[in-house]
């Protein structure tokens, strides 16, 4: 059952990720991305990481992708409706490097013999969300704070860029 679910979600993730690249219409690409985010959330649920699944939907599907769509719609990017588009040679070179990377990674990593159905033995019997909270604010406090600091800098940078133009116009 779990293997079948994993096959479905994994396959759908790969397929929708391909569609993101192949669709010429940027709105269709964004929609494929939405499908991909949802199926990744499904993968998290199989791994019993419900909190992560919820946050994945809330943050990526609910906020980030809506902003992408917003921009795409406002910019009114021209689309010619064809499915497969011809890429520049540069993309082919980058693609080959990426493919080699992925294959090398796959060769060096052992596949999971089976999906971890039961929670990890190290994880206490608390609920999913409590565990993440405990770990995030004790063991991983420093990386967490670094990440929020980086986000803050990005935030300030965005405001400076937007406001700076307004002032001197």
């Amino acid at each position: 059952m779990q293997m079948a679910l994993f096959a479905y979600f994994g396959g759908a993730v790969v397929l929708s990720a391909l569609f993101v690249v192949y669709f010429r219409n940027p709105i269709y690409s964004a929609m494929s991305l939405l499908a991909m985010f949802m199926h990744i959330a499904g993968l998290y649920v199989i791994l019993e990481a419900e909190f992560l699944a919820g946050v994945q939907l809330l943050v990526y599907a609910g906020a980030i992708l809506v902003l992408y769509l917003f921009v795409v719609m406002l910019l009114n990017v021209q689309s010619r409706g064809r499915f497969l588009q011809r890429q520049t040679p540069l993309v082919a070179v980058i693609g080959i490097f990426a493919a080699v990377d992925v294959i090398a990674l796959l060769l060096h990593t052992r596949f999971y013999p089976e999906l971890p159905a039961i929670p990890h033995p190290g994880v206490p019997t608390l609920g999913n969300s409590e565990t993440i909270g405990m770990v995030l604010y004790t063991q991983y406090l420093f990386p967490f704070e670094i990440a929020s600091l980086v986000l803050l800098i990005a935030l300030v940078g965005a405001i400076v860029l937007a406001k700076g133009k307004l002032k001197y116009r």
Partner: protein
Amino acid sequence: MLNDLASAVIVIVAVLFVLLTTVAYLTYLERKVLGFMQDRLGPMEVGPWGLLQPLADGIKLISKEDIIPSDADKAIFRIAPVISLVPAIISFAVIPFGRDSFHFLGITTHPYITDINIGILYVLALSSVGAYGILLGGWASNSKYSLLGALRSAAQVISYELNAGMSVIGVLILAGSLSLVKIEAAQSGGFWHWYIFPQIVAFVIYLISGIAETNRTPFDLPEAESELVAGFFTEYSGMRFSLYYLAEYANMIMVSSIATILFLGGWNSPFAFLDFVPPFVWFMLKVYFFLFFFFWIRATLPRLRYDQLMKFGWKVMLPLSFANVIVTAIVVYMVRH
């Protein structure tokens, strides 16, 4: 196993039946309430006191021609109303309607479809997915009014979703759980245990954000009829139009249910001597109070201007909800240690 399956099917059918009937009759109720508030009668012709009006409306909408504009993006135009409605309906899977499990044909069932441990997060995540229906429908129509409505809606939903999510955190700190069943249970024993009192700020913020998220007056800028014809569903007709309508009403019920569960104690009765009233009835009464509130607001307040809406959301509500989270966290820490 078979028993579990049967009980799940029974609850799902019951929830869907109650939900869709409520949605249909909310349209009637809204017209009646608005009518009475404007000193008129509302629908009176179809059936006694117009009670069969939703049925007549349904038949009308189903039998209407489904017009798709020739320049529309047909695939997305077709699927957008469905994207809007489905998340609105499936988010009811985690809403607990009562306390006691009940028996039906010898099978015991819970008063909720499922009690997942991220209940409130699930609801918030789905409500954010519902925004795609509006955004895509407006874009696919290939009409400037629709696109303007869709863009307004996207900006509005993102801004106010943040406030709704932040206002919920205070309650989560007090209840110590994301599960809606546990949040309700934590508020049992008299109305003074309800979270509306310690979380009055969050309650007001949630209610305002809820009205904004469902695109209701005074936040109905995505469909402002005096400037945008009908906003994002200008080009929709027949059943697809009514799918958007159903989604809006289902979202209203959702916001009312969440407000009931988080702040008014869900199925808990206000006084111990009123415990003989079934928990289900208390839940419904509170939900209907909020639904009435929606109509009341619509009859009372004029529409906001767009910049007012954005300023209010980001500069008033967001700092307030952050302050609420911080104050709640500090007080809870001080009390418990």
